[in-house]
């Protein structure tokens, strides 16, 4: 079946892909997963410190998104909730990830490569800060969500987003600097 879209064509919006999925186009779903999986998996993995958990969250979130958003004919996401430049599906996806991760929390067992210095330091620093700080920093600086996007996903006012993001960055930078200093000493 001709999809009419290219897998690498970022000009095709999520909503267009979803319409194709609803008409039975399985390639469109693959493209949608391909587009969002790095962020979803990275967010889940960095949040929990475990790739296994990241993969589990990705499976769960895409499952849930397929059932409750893509397949559901009567889903309505107002424009206010749609992420700027990303569409309502991104909003739905990141909200689902955030909700699931906040339930899971950071894992005691972390399987991210500890031998890689900067990656290890980052993961340690992320694990050391509060959950709400870790979440907003990852959504903003790793996934690239705007302040408005963060407001939609986290359900906060823009002022609250700015304040929380500032405090989160301060906390994270303190932890990163601390570990960098220790590494230099050792």
């Amino acid at each position: 079946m001709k999809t009419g879209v290219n897998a690498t064509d970022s000009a095709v919006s999520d909503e267009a892909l979803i319409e194709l999925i609803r008409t039975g186009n399985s390639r469109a779903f693959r493209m949608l997963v391909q587009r969002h999986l790095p962020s979803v998996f990275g967010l889940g993995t960095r949040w929990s410190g475990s790739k296994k958990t990241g993969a589990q969250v990705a499976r769960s979130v895409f499952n849930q998104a397929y059932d409750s958003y893509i397949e559901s004919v009567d889903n309505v996401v107002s424009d206010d909730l749609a992420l700027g430049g990303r569409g309502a599906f991104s909003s739905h996806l990141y909200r689902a990830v955030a909700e699931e991760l906040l339930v899971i929390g950071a894992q005691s067992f972390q399987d991210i490569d500890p031998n890689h210095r900067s990656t290890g330091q980052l993961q340690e620093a992320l694990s050391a800060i509060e959950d709400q700080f870790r979440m907003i920093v990852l959504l903003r600086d790793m996934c690239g969500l705007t302040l408005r996007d963060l407001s939609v996903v986290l359900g906060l006012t823009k002022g609250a987003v700015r304040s929380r993001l500032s405090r989160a960055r301060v906390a994270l930078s303190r932890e990163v600097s601390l570990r960098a200093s220790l590494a230099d000493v050792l």
Partner: protein
Amino acid sequence: MNEFFAKNRLSSYIDGALSPRDNREMDLVILENLAVRTAHAEMVRAVELVGSEGRITPPEGLIDEIVSAHQDRPPSMSRMGIFIRLSLFVIVVCLGVGAYYYARGGGERVVDISAQRDRFIEELVDVSVSVAEPEAVTVPELVSGEATDPESEPEIQTVAPVVSLSPNTGPVSLAPSRPQEIGPQAELDLTSTNEWEEIFEGSGRGTVPSRYRFYAVNSGSLIQIASLARGAGGSLVSQNGVAFETFRMSTERNFSNFVARIPSESVASFLGELQLLGSLSVVPSDGVLLSPNGQVELGVQVQYSP
């Protein structure tokens, strides 16, 4: 701008979210204040670290795993879809149960026909049951013949009709020429009758129709026969000779045997009226049983349609 406010605005400064005026002020503070400059450097470092090192490549096969999980399972339904399918399922189940009970005839159902019988009899009691004599048939006048075994069957004699129709002449219809004018049966529900079957019993020289099987679809047919017998001056008795009583007929035991005792002079009219209920053809011959009171006995079996 003092150090406290400057540190609080570092995050917005990095994001470029400050107004041009505030942005310029922040530039100056960062140049002049070592603590703010250090805090800014540390924050930029952390933000860049998250941006550059934060992303982790998903393991190979995870995409396939997620995609195939949805290809292998049926699509979920919306609430409306679930409601519609559930409704259809309930309707189909109800139809199936209904069809089952309809085909089964309601199970082991016992039909009490007494009230129905009484009603029919009341309706028929004042109605003349005189039936036009069939032109094609001379009413057989039955006379007593020689008893074959008077001791073993003291009450019943085998008689030969005085006026007999030759079996070679073929079936002779006893139907009246104007059946619609005959008897009260015309007003009865004849749809309850769908077939007659004669049971020919070999007797003497020819084949004698002395028993009849009457297929009926409900108990009303039996009441019709009883009414006809009464109208012909006869009666129905059960096979063991007991007077016919309203009985209960089970759809499991879907037949009932009884004997019609009809005066010989009314046999033709009785059979003719029975014929109106179905497609009976009578071929009178010898060997008709005659009861002691001069009545002819005809075995009748009523059977509900399977």
